[in-house]
């Protein structure tokens, strides 16, 4: 091969090299963009999961108040509340499908408690040893006492953990 041809070959290889470098650069850039948008989606999914679990907790038939089977919105039956903790802990695997890694509790805020009155109810507790995020949702609910027919002001706290 002559010198001219060698130079031509060298040119071609250099062009190809630059072409591939640009292509790889573009590809890496594109992948980074995709990674960024995937992260956004993951974040959105975690939020959706937290909202979903909070909704499921507030609409649970095991907790909700009803009047002749008509659901009362944003209301938890005090008498059901006393029983539900045991049910949820005895059937932890079943309720894990619904509440996953989360902590669900109810707290009475008003009227102020009398001495010895229970104001905190731990309903479900499945907190992982290590987690990457924790999202807390507080839902104001009425705590209905069916014997006195009174409504107290309470908070349903739902903390959702992501491993």
């Amino acid at each position, binding site marked *: 091969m002559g010198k001219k041809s060698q130079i031509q070959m060298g040119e071609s290889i250099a062009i190809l090299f630059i072409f591939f470098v640009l292509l790889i650069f573009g590809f890496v*850039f594109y992948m*980074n*963009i995709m990674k*960024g*948008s995937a992260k*956004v*989606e993951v*974040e*959105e999914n975690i*939020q*959706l999961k*937290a*909202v979903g679990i*909070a909704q499921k907790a507030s609409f649970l038939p095991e907790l909700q108040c009803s009047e002749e089977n008509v659901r009362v*919105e*944003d209301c938890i039956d005090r008498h059901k509340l006393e029983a539900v903790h045991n049910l949820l802990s005895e059937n932890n695997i079943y309720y894990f499908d619904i509440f996953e890694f989360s902590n669900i509790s109810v707290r009475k*805020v*008003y*009227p*102020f408690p009398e001495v010895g009155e229970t104001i905190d109810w731990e309903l479900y507790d499945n907190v992982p040893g290590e987690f990457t995020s924790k*999202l807390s*949702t*507080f*839902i*104001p*609910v*009425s705590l209905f006492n069916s014997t006195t027919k*009174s*409504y*107290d*002001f*309470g*908070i349903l706290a739902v903390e959702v953990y992501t491993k």
Partner: protein
Amino acid sequence: MRKGQMEVMGLAIIVILVSVSMLFAISFVVLKKPTSYKSEFTQTELASNMLSTLLETTIPNCNDLNMKDLYKDCAIDPLNPQVRCDDPGCWLNYSLGVGEQCTSCEFINYTTQVILSETLGKWNTGYGFIARTSTDTLVSVGRCPGVKKHKIYPIPIDPSGKNILDVSLDVCN
């Protein structure tokens, strides 16, 4: 212009166009903030649940009336409300004398503040609560400038339904 200069100009334009499109791509895709489903849901739920739950709450120290009844009583005649509440917290708050009791207006002011500060206040969530008729403002707690979720709960205060008490809550970050 020489041919070489024209080529350089063309190249420069291409480079500028590519850079601008890259910038757009970065601003739209990389810097895109995740849609905040949770805070949307939380604020909307908070505003509506807080109002309905608050007004539904039964007050044992006010003849087992609920907050809605007390708001109504205060709205009918704010200067001379009919209902009295035997509530120690309210009594202390207004430094009343022995044998005196809070009026419904005093009670709703005190209780609304207590409940909101025990909840939204503790969670560092901004709020603005207002209860007013066409002539009087009965309760006003907090302020919520800027972006907010607004919930209003109208309570008719006379049988004709002409006079309305508007109880509203704004929730903001």
